[in-house]
């Protein structure tokens, strides 16, 4: 049994995996331990390293995404798949969706993708300050992702908000954009952003008003916006109140007196429309 430290990123794992492959170390003989007491990712010299066959791009894509997952088992799983591709003669393994290893990896890939998508959706920026000279605004957001997705999730914000400065602060790493470069720094355990943002009041008004009390579907909401995100979404504080008041609001509508139909007012434009419709009917 060999202890190996995969490090924290795809590239550190990749380096360690290459070394193992060259020395033909089978997956069952490897113990992957991040920051482990015994192992290290130091490349060992071997007399005759075997040549690693070219690895399909589809695997690299999959492995890169899976590497952002928070499950420590991702490293041995990826190595097992890699071993089967390079030493087991299963070059097309990644396309076998029913293989148990691939199923497991695809599930992790899916959670990572979903979390990136939710980051794009649920990060909420607050205005910190505006540069008096240039007028350039600086925003910051606090977000708590389940997986290590700050790096892959940040390109989107760079493209979308390239003309404002922003920081996304999370316990799993932070991203900062200053208009020129995207910088990543280690995570911060607690939300440091204290400033309230005046626009939040308008956002809450919007959320309250766009809700239709006659079509309550709480489960549908929660499937797409799970509760674990609520604490960082300002609008979520309204949810209970909106659900609670929906039934009385609908009952109120249903008992409302029916409004009579009024005759068409004198209006040249409405007359014109009526004439057009009449001609259409006659055609």
């Amino acid at each position, binding site marked *: 049994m060999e202890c190996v430290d995969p490090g924290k990123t795809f590239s550190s794992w990749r380096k360690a995996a290459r070394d193992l492959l060259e020395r033909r170390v089978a997956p069952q003989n490897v113990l992957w331990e991040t920051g482990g007491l015994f192992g290290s990712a130091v490349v060992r010299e071997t007399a005759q390293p075997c040549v690693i066959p070219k690895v399909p791009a589809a695997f690299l894509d999959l492995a890169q995404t899976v590497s952002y997952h928070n499950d420590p088992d991702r490293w041995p799983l990826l190595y097992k798949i890699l071993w089967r591709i390079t030493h087991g003669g299963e070059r097309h393994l990644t396309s076998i969706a029913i293989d148990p290893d691939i199923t497991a990896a695809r599930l992790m890939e899916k959670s990572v993708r979903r979390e990136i998508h939710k980051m794009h959706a649920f990060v909420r920026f607050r205005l910190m300050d505006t540069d008096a000279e240039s007028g350039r605004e600086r925003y910051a957001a606090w977000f708590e992702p389940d997986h290590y997705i700050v790096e892959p999730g940040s390109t989107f914000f760079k493209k979308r908000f390239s003309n404002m400065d922003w920081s996304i602060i999370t316990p799993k790493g932070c991203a900062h954009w200053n208009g020129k470069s995207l910088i990543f720094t280690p995570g911060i355990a607690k939300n440091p952003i204290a400033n309230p943002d005046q626009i939040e009041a308008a956002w809450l008004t919007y959320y309250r008003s766009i809700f239709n009390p006659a079509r309550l579907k709480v489960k549908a909401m929660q499937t797409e916006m799970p509760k674990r995100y609520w604490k960082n979404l300002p609008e979520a504080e309204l949810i209970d109140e909106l659900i609670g008041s929906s039934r009385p609001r609908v009952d109120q*509508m249903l008992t409302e007196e029916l409004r009579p139909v009024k005759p068409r007012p004198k209006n040249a434009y409405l007359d014109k429309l009526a004439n057009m419709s009449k001609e259409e009917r006659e055609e």
Partner: protein
Amino acid sequence: MELQSKLAILADAAKYDASCASSGAVRGDSLNGTGVGSTGGAGICHSYAPDGRCISLLKLLLTNSCIYDCHYCINRRSSNVRRAAFTAEEVVKLTLDFYKRNYIEGLFLSSGIIRNADHTMEQVIAVARTLREVHDFRGYIHLKTIPEASAELIETAARYADRISINLELPTQKSLDLLAPEKSLTRTRLAMGKIRHKLDEAHDRRKNGDKKLRHATGQSTQVIVGADASTDADFLARSDDLYGNFKMRRVYYSAFSPIPEPSKILPLKAPPLIREHRLYQADWLMRFYGFKTSEILTPEMPNLDLDLDPKLAWALRNRQDFPVDIQTAGREILLRVPGLGVRNADRIIHIRRHTRIRLTDLARLRVSLSKVQPFIITADHHPNSMLLDSDKLRARFLPKPVQLELF
């Protein structure tokens, strides 16, 4: 009036529009611009309201004053609802403020009809123009257009927007005459035809090298379900017409929903949400599964079965076509198996080249076994032929009786 009050009125007035899609725009971002915004790829839902609906766009009416009298609409002229109007600057500022905080993908702007169609269109366009030209806003814009507006104005709207739409609201002229006397099916179809032509032109220009062309990429529409006696067959026939003739990206079905200002000729009922859902399912069968309207509904049965999804209902009426061998059946046959979606059908076709498919494999693809089993043959499974013939099959799929949901 204070901005917050206007926002409350004009967002409330806009909430009956079901569409909130922000997908399908040309890819673009603000890296080489001066403002904010990016589009392209799948849309993003930035929040969800307790009605289960996605909040992707800032959906507003410019004003809820309206000279039309559509009886299903809270903003009709005979309603006593409180009226308000935004200035263009107010909408522009709200859009940018919300966008920069990552609350929204962009703006969905509609308006009550004020004075006439052209005047109203001009007001709506002014907002989009300011966003695009003054603020270099590159986020998503959906503009509602009016069939009677001039072709030039509609084209101007399309140049600033990513998506434009005209709401048909009801599937036949008969229904419109009753509930929306100012609306005309003929004029709406005519305008949709012109829009399609412009969209096609823009598509060609983009294909021939004008990659950065700013122009809407699609149109959509909405119909209200359950406001009158229109049958599901009426709706699906109209959708067929709209998808086929005008390349609609989407037809939205919106269950008629109680409004605070009920009209005498349209008494309120609770919305039949399940009917709306079944129509969406049927709509997907037509667009992605190769079903014809005539297969989904028949003259004797003009409404969808509310208890069963339309594909399952079709399969139960056509048991002679089953069971289907998963190992050999063609794609179009697999797509007709209840419980198999487009993605899984394609995966099965890929996988079966390498392996004999068994039930456990389908379970790994997260196919619902209890749903597909009666209709398929796999290496390790052959359905009980008695079951396929028996009426018990229908009973097997009917929803279990449940207690009414308590509030």
